[in-house]
């Protein structure tokens, strides 16, 4: 089980886009990430990641988590097939605490401590 704990370099702080700091800011945030359905192949076959997100000026969202992952967790080839723009590539599903992210405002979902975030690829065959 790997983890990425290093803090986000200030130059790449896409997180600081939001204006006002809200609750939960100023503390570390731990979340669990899992890859399924072949998405793990885009992360060097790591199936699980425990990520400790550094204190931020505002709440972490899936959007800023993806920006963080791109810098800190990305390993191996094929990553351009996981990330597209500020989101995941169409065909990769996201399930947050056993709920489809489509029900949770997708990229704008605000992370809570110990959230379980699963990325499932539909793009891989059998």
């Amino acid at each position, binding site marked *: 089980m790997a983890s990425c704990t290093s803090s986000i370099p200030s130059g790449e702080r896409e997180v600081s886009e939001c204006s006002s700091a809200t609750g939960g800011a100023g503390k570390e945030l731990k979340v669990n990430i899992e890859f399924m359905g072949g998405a793990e192949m885009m992360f060097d076959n790591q199936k699980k990641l425990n990520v400790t997100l550094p204190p931020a000026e505002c709440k972490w969202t899936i959007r800023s988590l993806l920006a963080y992952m791109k810098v800190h967790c990305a390993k191996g080839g094929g990553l351009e097939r996981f990330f597209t723009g500020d989101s995941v590539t169409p065909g990769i*599903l996201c399930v947050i605490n056993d709920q489809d992210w489509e029900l949770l405002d997708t990229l704008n979902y605000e992370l809570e401590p110990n959230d379980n975030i699963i990325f499932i690829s539909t793009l891989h065959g059998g």
Partner: protein
Amino acid sequence: MPVLCSANCGSNAVLKRPKTGDALCKECFFWAFETEVHNTIISNKLFQRNSLVAIAASGGKDSTVLAYVLKLLNEKYDYGLRFVLLSIDEGITGYRDDSLETVKKNQEDYEMPLKILSYEELYGWTMDQIVAQIGRKNNCTFCGVFRRQALDRGAALLRVDCLVTGHNADDIAETVLMNILRGDIARLQRCTAITTTSEGTIPRCKPLKYTYEREIVMYAYFKKLVYFSTECTFAPNAYRGYARVFLKDLERMRPTAIIDILHSGEQLSVKDSVKMPERGKCTRCGFVSSQEICKACSLLEGLNRGLPKLGIGKKSHADRIRKALAEF
């Protein structure tokens, strides 16, 4: 903030359906998913009572969900069917040998007998050997043609009444796009058919034809079904890859795009003036073919003669090579 299930069952929703936009809880989603497949089976009269049905099983998500749902529906609605799993071993080290382990697990979980048929026993060549011979340029052509015929042969060997494949709505929409891009009118007409029958072969059908890939993956996830996902170790089909990416982009913008393309494909009709190839039998192996020598036999001849290009190009080109060889 939990979202309530659109079916008013009182439970919290777990997903949003792409087809309808409904937010459903786990149980209502399972019910909707299974009922749609059941309705597809009934309204298209896919099966007859007491039939033996072969499920083309790769160990991947589609065939795993298909086997699971067919077993469930057969028991729930008493279709009176018996099933057998049919797997094709292309002979690709590190790809098929792993996924076949998953199929063996399906065999135990779903209590269905399993038949594995290999390219090696059917054609005398594994895909590894073919790639060693021809390189990585046209290997997908060989693999696709051989797999299609291998399933037909397996179905005949098992004496089944029909063969079901795990093709889903996304796969079919993708094929519609591919056939338009290639200008292949004959295939465009055939590719949306839920059942394909041709003389001399066992009928094939696609019970998941109207099922979104996204829902298949969600179903497998919430049911905790174990499947194998991988990529072929050889170069993927780039052209199909683009069609796939294009389709998924469309789906993100408008979730019904997939079913819309599928419907467009179904509605297209070809004018009488368009010449359709006649369907006959291969003079060598006896399988259905629009040519005198079927694609599989043609490719095989090329391999065995050390002229792998024989079966790949145009028929006229192959005829010229054959003629030259005969004169030689």
